[in-house]
């Protein structure tokens, strides 16, 4: 069909425009030629239009089940439900790379649209750097991963999408994650532009922070969504496996979190400039590394759609050129950036530096744990696996002091602070933490000291992060009315900080509950038999077959009762997708408060018994609700007047700092 050729052609045109965007604006910025610089915005917008057209063409091919496209044939099926036909566009290597580039050019276009207040040379240079990344990935798609390749003759039916991916999660998780991954490119482009210009100031940080914050919000949600998806889809009830592809998304998140905090210091105090630039480069480098790990086929996972060596080599080349090039540029130009002010170790700046030190060190341990097996295998041929025990002994100990320090941060004053005074203000949080630990120990019969301490840490974080806004609003007295008025009159950024940190506390609470106090029973049952778990009774009522659109399934029904009262029915299933000859397990999940009851089926056991895994996971939903809360905090910060893109602001004098 014609639309496919138009889409293919649009992609080639977009590559041409990306080359123009890569060269002309930055050349104009160097030579002071305003006309060359002015090329950047229209070209960025046109590139977006072309890539969007190309993406639309591929989507149409999926919707119409046009199996003359190799990509559609390999990953779709005419009987597949419409939602999965659409999300299936990025449920494969080629399509997901096209989505990656679409989001990249979308971000470039957003800079072009909202960048009106940026100095023209900075805007032109930033867009040129975006152009380099766009050109590299468009070249990659067109040369090694073209989704528009045809096959003749066209087959009658497709091979269907991997059934694990036929889930609403595929419609949500990759786009969220990609917006996060790719959004970090803006911070990178700003960093490179600052290095090229040899100039950087607080205004630069004020620009970079909202972009980083936006990317971070999506990254947080994307990772949380991926975690929840794996939790309900894979049928093991695990929510984080320290799998290399998970780490690949987690490392940019850690770097972006550090960047978010160091950019505050740079914006407010004009300090940590050189470090912030380095973090921006590292954060995007880790995004590229993640893309390489996931898409090159060096790892075997559900994310590695195809293993084609030329693709791996191509992405590795992109990785080496961008990371190597930007670090070389950094080594050459960073000394020219004027270092900022210095501050006392005990101060808001000091706390944010501490945050950065711990996050970077923790990120480095994840980096080592993820890449060491690959490095060892390529050097010695020895195959090893690095799993949860490694990360529990490296990442976790490094994060604990960082988490303990969180409530102190927002209470400390800039420049020089009074640590004893701050500690006094955190008395309530400390009491809450102690009480929570004691109550948890008492309720659990003094088992699991570590998990009880983790619960205490969670309450320290939750109460500690509320301390700052509450005490700030309480200052001045006057009863409840004025308090509430002052409380809701606080700047949104203050709520953003509090919610972000509170979300972290909720996530820690969820982790403590789900990993410290979970119950699991694996058993086999016949109809009428009962499974008891954590005070719930699950009575197996039998199973019946059912026919789905492109699968058939065996549905097992369980009646759930507690203290003799019927609560609900749970129906885990075992599915079979004939197109791929592949079975999947669909767990049944019952949410009770913040806790969940999780039931999944195994293979039929001996004598026709049904093997069942029943789990009770206390507080487990808080893991993801905490992430949503963190993202909400990010949104509130983004909505703060000071950060609103394009909001008029008075000229700011750089404060002289001793």
């Amino acid at each position, binding site marked *: 069909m014609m639309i496919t050729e138009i889409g293919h052609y649009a992609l080639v045109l977009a590559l041409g425009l990306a080359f123009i965007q890569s060269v002309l604006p930055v050349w104009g910025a160097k030579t002071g030629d305003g006309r060359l610089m002015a090329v950047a915005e229209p070209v960025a917008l046109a590139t977006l239009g072309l890539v969007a057209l190309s993406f639309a063409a591929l989507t149409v091919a999926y919707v119409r089940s046009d199996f003359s496209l190799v990509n559609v044939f390999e990953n779709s099926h005419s009987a597949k439900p419409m939602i999965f036909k659409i999300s299936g566009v990025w449920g494969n290597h080629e399509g997901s790379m096209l989505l990656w580039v679409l989001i990249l050019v979308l971000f470039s276009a957003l800079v072009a649209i909202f960048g009106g207040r940026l100095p023209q040379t900075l805007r032109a240079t930033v867009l040129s750097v975006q152009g380099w990344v766009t050109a590299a990935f468009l070249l990659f798609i067109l040369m090694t991963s073209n989704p528009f390749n045809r096959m003749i003759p066209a087959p009658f*039916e497709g091979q269907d999408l991997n059934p694990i991916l036929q889930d609403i999660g595929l419609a949500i998780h990759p786009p969220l994650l990609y917006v996060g991954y790719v959004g970090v490119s803006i911070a990178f482009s700003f960093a490179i532009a600052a290095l090229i210009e040899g100039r950087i100031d607080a205004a630069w940080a004020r620009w970079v922070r909202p972009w980083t914050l936006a990317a971070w919000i999506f990254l947080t949600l994307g990772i949380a969504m991926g975690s929840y998806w794996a939790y309900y889809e894979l049928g093991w009830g695990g929510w984080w496996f320290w799998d290399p592809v998970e780490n690949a998304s987690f490392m940019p998140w850690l770097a972006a979190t550090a960047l978010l905090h160091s950019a505050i210091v740079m914006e407010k105090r004009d300090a940590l400039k050189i470090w912030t630039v380095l973090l921006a480069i590292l954060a995007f480098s880790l995004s590229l590394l993640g893309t390489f790990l996931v898409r090159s086929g060096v790892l075997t996972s559900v994310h590695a759609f195809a293993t084609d060596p030329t693709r791996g080599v191509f992405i590795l080349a992109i990785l080496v050129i961008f990371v190597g090039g930007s670090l070389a540029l950094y080594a050459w130009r960073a000394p020219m950036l004027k270092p900022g002010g210095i501050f006392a170790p005990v101060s808001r700046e000091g706390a944010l530096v501490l945050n950065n030190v711990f996050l970077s060190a923790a990120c480095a*341990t994840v980096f080592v744990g993820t890449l060491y097996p690959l490095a060892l295998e390529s050097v010695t041929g020895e195959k090893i696996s*690095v799993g949860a025990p490694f990360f529990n002994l490296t990442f976790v100990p490094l994060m604990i002091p960082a988490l303990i320090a969180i409530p102190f941060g927002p209470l400390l004053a800039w420049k020089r602070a009074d640590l004893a005074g701050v500690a006094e203000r955190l008395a309530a949080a400390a009491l809450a933490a102690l009480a929570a630990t004691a109550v948890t120990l008492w309720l659990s019969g003094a088992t699991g000291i570590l998990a009880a301490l983790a619960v205490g840490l969670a309450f320290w974080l939750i109460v500690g992060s509320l301390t700052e806004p509450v005490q700030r609003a309480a200052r001045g007295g006057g009863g409840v009315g004025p308090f509430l008025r002052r409380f809701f009159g606080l700047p949104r950024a203050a709520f953003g900080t509090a919610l972000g940190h509170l979300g972290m506390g909720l996530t820690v609470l969820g982790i403590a509950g789900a990993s410290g106090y979970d119950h699991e029973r694996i058993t086999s049952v016949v109809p009428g038999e009962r499974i008891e778990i954590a005070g719930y009774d699950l009575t197996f009522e039998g199973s019946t077959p059912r026919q789905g659109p492109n699968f058939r399934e065996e549905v097992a029904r369980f009646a759930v009762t507690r203290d003799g009262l019927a609560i609900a029915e749970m129906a885990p299933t075992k599915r079979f997708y004939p197109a791929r000859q592949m079975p999947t397990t669909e767990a049944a999940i019952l949410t009770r408060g913040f806790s969940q009851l999780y039931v999944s089926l195994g293979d039929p056991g001996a004598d026709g018994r049904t093997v069942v895994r029943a789990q009770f996971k206390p507080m487990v939903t808080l893991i993801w609700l905490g992430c949503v809360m963190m993202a909400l905090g990010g949104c509130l910060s983004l909505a703060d007047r000071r950060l609103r893109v394009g909001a008029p602001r008075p000229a700011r004098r750089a404060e002289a700092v001793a």
Partner: protein
Amino acid sequence: MTRKQRRLVLIGVAGAVLMSATGLVLSALNDQIVFFRTPTELAERQVPVGDRVRMGGLVAEGSVERTGETEVRFTVTDTASTIPVTYTGILPDLFREGQGVVTEGRLGPDGVFVADTVLAKHDENYMPKEVADSLKAQGHWQEGAEAGAPGAAGQ
């Protein structure tokens, strides 16, 4: 505090955190990594009994047997040697006889591998890389044999 002292504190703290991170990583790399071994290497007792290892190979045809309520026995082969495995729990969806599998656990003194983790493929199109590599090493690998399997048009 002078400017120099402040800088020293900063560098000191950063250095201390980085040192402890390095220490943690090195000690964890010493104790917490799991080596991948083939059934042949286990059969030749190249691995001390009781050490945690990953073993990968093919699930031997006709070897899967349910012995208890949730206990499963099967044998894993790299075509040169065969190791019996016991596992209690739910097998992954794509666990099948004649297919690649990776198990993690410990070899008992009786030569039976007690697995606490069984991993199969995410997708029927490829097998775990470790298994493919060890089969290649045994000379039982046909290039492209697995890639061309699906794809019959007009099902």
